[in-house]
């Protein structure tokens, strides 16, 4: 791990909404190829963190560097173009378009030819297991499938880093397992992954390292073992008894 | 010209295009104008038509300039009319006359006043009624000949403001008033234009209250005319005279809306009810006939506005078309150029003669324009002397 180069560096990051700090003084470093889990109670600032890294929110203070370049002031589309993709916790499909078209739009970023782009998109749709729904309009997909669509679309932009915000929420254990496999595969291919998940079982078994946010502050940062035995984390987030595994 | 001659296609019918804004914001006078032509056509038809042929009006709606062109096109190429009469509004007329001129169809403007219509030197475009500059001329001449002496001052000691709605009608009249007033040395304190659809003129009135002009020259449509007088009264703005030109001030709706507050306002307009001494016997008969018939059919008095149209229709239906050698453009054009009706022969006291004004061959130089005044909620002719039925009275304005 030490040998890997720093890819994403977050320093003293803070965001306030009308005086309330949703995040403050957070430092996180992500190395190339790493799979970093991010957990924390509801409202801890996880999504806000993603929003800042991906340009949807401007940090109130602090620095975000990607490959040693300051990216805090870039627009979301610039962020995508330098290789950082994301999914939305509250899914945002293009409702009137088919699944395939949804994904094609991601591919068009680097493949101008619409027909070729569609071919590539088809692969991505298969990858997330939505091939049966290729031509279904996105608005009639049930929630679980929409989450996969989010994922397929993000993957379609051919990113170096992918930030997944609760992609397993609303999936049953079986489906979660499929999704975990997918994440693992991506990781093995060398993709750097940031994963927000309340499903501890999934998160803990996937992550190499976990960052815990709590009320906007970084509470802990360490290996899965360190985190699951960290008393503060247990109190603030996991809860004490065995139920935590779910 | 093959198309024009096709106007006779039914043998016993002469088709004439009547192009007016029947819908949209100009619809009121557009419809009234159409009714004016219709009235003359009915009367002429009842008396045997034109050389035995009945007049058949082809109605066309021109709510905007694009429609005016498109409808002119239809009248010419589809309905094959040899003659179009219209359109009441200057902008619409300018647009429609382009089409007529290009297609070699005679177009007789009955009531739009913008000078541009006849200034372009088109050979197929004629106007029986007066132009804006003639209207402006009348307003200023009246000021010079009557108001100034009546106020006991020299005309170049007078101050005035010009307020006009901003479409081509108001602008054209205002331009002419401005020019003529300056020639006489009347001091113009302010010239203001506004949108006729406005719902407030109080600011302009406040401004005038500060400027204290002797005379307000105003050119408006109806809604704004009502508003202006109403608010002037309310805000206690009382110049020595309000001299308006045609448009809304001459309409019965204006009088009805304002009641006695309309009294005292001067309106320069085509005459609607001139002193009968200025008319020939024939004209008096016509005048009575139309006034009565209009009242019967519409329940209102004929205004100068409608008289314009009636005049034009009378000239066309009783003088020009019966005498035209052929009912095509050349025939009608020739007949038009030969018309020579002296003043007083038309029921409103006008006469007709074209080709007398430099650069405006299609303009009738004998279109009469007079000054009227609202008195006792009626519009009476007060100037010039030979036409007048009543005396002008400056004390009437906002007297209650």
């Amino acid at each position, binding site marked *: 791990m030490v040998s890997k180069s720093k890819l994403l560096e977050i320093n003293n990051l803070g965001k306030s*909404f009308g005086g309330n700090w949703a995040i403050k003084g957070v430092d996180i470093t992500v190395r190339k190829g790493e799979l970093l889990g991010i*957990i*924390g*109670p*509801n*409202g*801890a600032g*996880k*999504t*806000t963190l993603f929003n800042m890294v991906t340009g949807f929110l401007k940090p109130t203070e602090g620095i975000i560097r990607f490959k040693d370049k300051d990216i805090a002031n870039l627009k979301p589309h610039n962020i995508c173009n330098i290789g950082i993709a994301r999914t939305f*916790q*509250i899914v945002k499909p293009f409702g009137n378009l088919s699944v395939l078209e949804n994904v094609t739009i991601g591919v068009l970023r680097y493949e101008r030819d619409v027909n070729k782009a569609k071919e590539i998109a088809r692969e991505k749709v298969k990858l997330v297991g939505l091939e049966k729904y290729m031509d279904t309009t996105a608005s*009639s*997909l*049930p*929630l*679980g*499938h929409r989450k996969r669509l989010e994922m397929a679309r993000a993957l379609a932009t051919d990113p170096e880093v992918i930030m997944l915000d*609760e992609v397993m*929420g*609303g*999936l*049953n*254990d*079986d*489906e*979660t*397992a499929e999704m975990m496999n997918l994440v693992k595969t991506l990781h093995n291919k060398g993709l750097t992954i940031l994963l927000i998940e*309340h499903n*501890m*079982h999934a998160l803990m078994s996937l992550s190499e390292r976990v960052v815990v946010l709590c009320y906007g502050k970084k509470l802990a940062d360490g290996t899965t073992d360190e985190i699951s035995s960290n008393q503060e984390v247990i109190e*603030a*987030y*996991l*809860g004490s008894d065995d*139920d*935590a595994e*779910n | 010209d093959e198309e024009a001659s096709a106007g006779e296609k039914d043998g016993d019918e002469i088709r004439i295009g009547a192009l007016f804004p029947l819908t949209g914001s100009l619809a009121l006078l557009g419809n009234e104008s159409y009714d004016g032509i219709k009235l003359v056509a009915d009367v002429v038809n009842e008396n045997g038509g034109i050389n035995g042929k009945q007049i058949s009006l082809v109605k066309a709606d021109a709510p905007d300039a694009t429609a005016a062109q498109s409808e002119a096109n239809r009248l010419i190429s589809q309905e094959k009319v040899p003659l179009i009469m219209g359109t009441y509004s200057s902008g619409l007329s300018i647009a429609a006359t382009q089409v007529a001129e290009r297609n070699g169809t005679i177009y007789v403007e009955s009531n739009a006043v913008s000078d541009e219509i006849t200034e372009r030197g088109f050979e197929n475009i004629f106007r029986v009624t007066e132009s804006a500059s003639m209207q402006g001329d009348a307003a200023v001449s009246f000021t010079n000949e009557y108001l100034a002496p009546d106020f006991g001052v020299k005309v170049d000691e007078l101050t005035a403001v010009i307020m006009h709605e901003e479409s081509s009608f108001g602008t054209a009249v205002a331009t002419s008033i401005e020019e003529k007033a300056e020639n006489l040395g009347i001091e113009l304190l302010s010239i203001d234009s506004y949108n006729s659809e406005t719902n407030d003129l109080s600011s302009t009135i406040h401004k005038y209250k500060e400027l204290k002009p002797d005379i307000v020259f105003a050119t408006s449509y109806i809604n704004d005319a009502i508003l202006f007088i109403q608010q002037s009264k309310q805000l206690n703005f009382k110049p020595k005279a309000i001299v308006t030109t045609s448009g809304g001030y001459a309409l019965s709706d204006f009088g009805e809306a304002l009641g006695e507050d309309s009294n005292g306002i001067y309106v320069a307009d085509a005459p609607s009810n001139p002193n009968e001494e200025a008319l020939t016997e024939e004209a008096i008969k016509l005048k009575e006939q139309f006034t009565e018939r209009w009242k019967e059919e519409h329940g209102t008095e004929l205004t100068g506005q409608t008289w314009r149209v009636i005049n034009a229709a009378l000239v066309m239906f009783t003088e020009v078309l019966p005498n035209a050698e052929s009912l095509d453009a050349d025939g009608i054009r020739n007949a038009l150029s030969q018309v020579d009706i002296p003043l007083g022969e038309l029921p409103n006291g006008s006469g007709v003669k074209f080709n007398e004004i430099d650069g405006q061959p299609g303009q009738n130089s004998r279109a009469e324009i007079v000054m009227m005044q609202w008195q006792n909620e009626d519009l009476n002719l007060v100037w010039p002397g030979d036409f007048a039925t009543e005396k002008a009275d400056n004390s009437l304005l906002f007297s209650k």
Partner: protein
Amino acid sequence: MMLKIKSLNAYYGDLQAIRDVSLEVGHGEIVALLGVNASGKSTTVRAISGLIDRMEGEIYYNKELINDIPPNQRTEMGLIQVPEGRQLFPFLTVRENLEMGAFTKEARSKLNENLERVFALFPEMKNKEKQLAGTMSGGEQQMCAIGRGLMSNPRLIMLDEPTLGLAPLIVKRIFGIIEEFRAMRITVLLIEQNVKQSLKIADRAYMLSNGKIIKEGSSSELMNSDDVVQGYLGV
């Protein structure tokens, strides 16, 4: 029986989402409705609330056939749904959202009492009282949605994936609350992905697959059934 459904079919346009579903929920019971994505769980619940245009079958609530009763009146009868995906009023504040929960006459009379109860269950909401609901984090919105459901003074509450996006601690709290419902004699129809935990607190459960009920029985029966073990708990 508090709720009884007979041979329910529901459609979205031409697409049939559930087929011949029959189920029952007794007074004071906690019944779980399980099934993979797209199996028709939410559709069933929506049909019970009257939000589906095209449906066939019979729905009885307290022995009364309610097929023709409009959705808002079903709410007045104490038949409450906490919908999937929060469905808050994004531009009302948290407090206003909760107050909207108490729209019906009966609930309105107990507004303050219920409000205190909700704030006691979710102290987070008390702090965010004046925040616009749409600006809250996903989990916070979920709490608000459950709170809003409680404000309606439910007699039968249908919870559609109430723990979606909630932190483990809160999930535990939610299950605690559901257990409390039993004590309060509030009947519960629960849709959950969290099968193990749901079966732990539920009396009985139904399992949907492809719009059909493929299994029903007491929680312990289902817990040990092969289908469930393979489909859900096999990880």
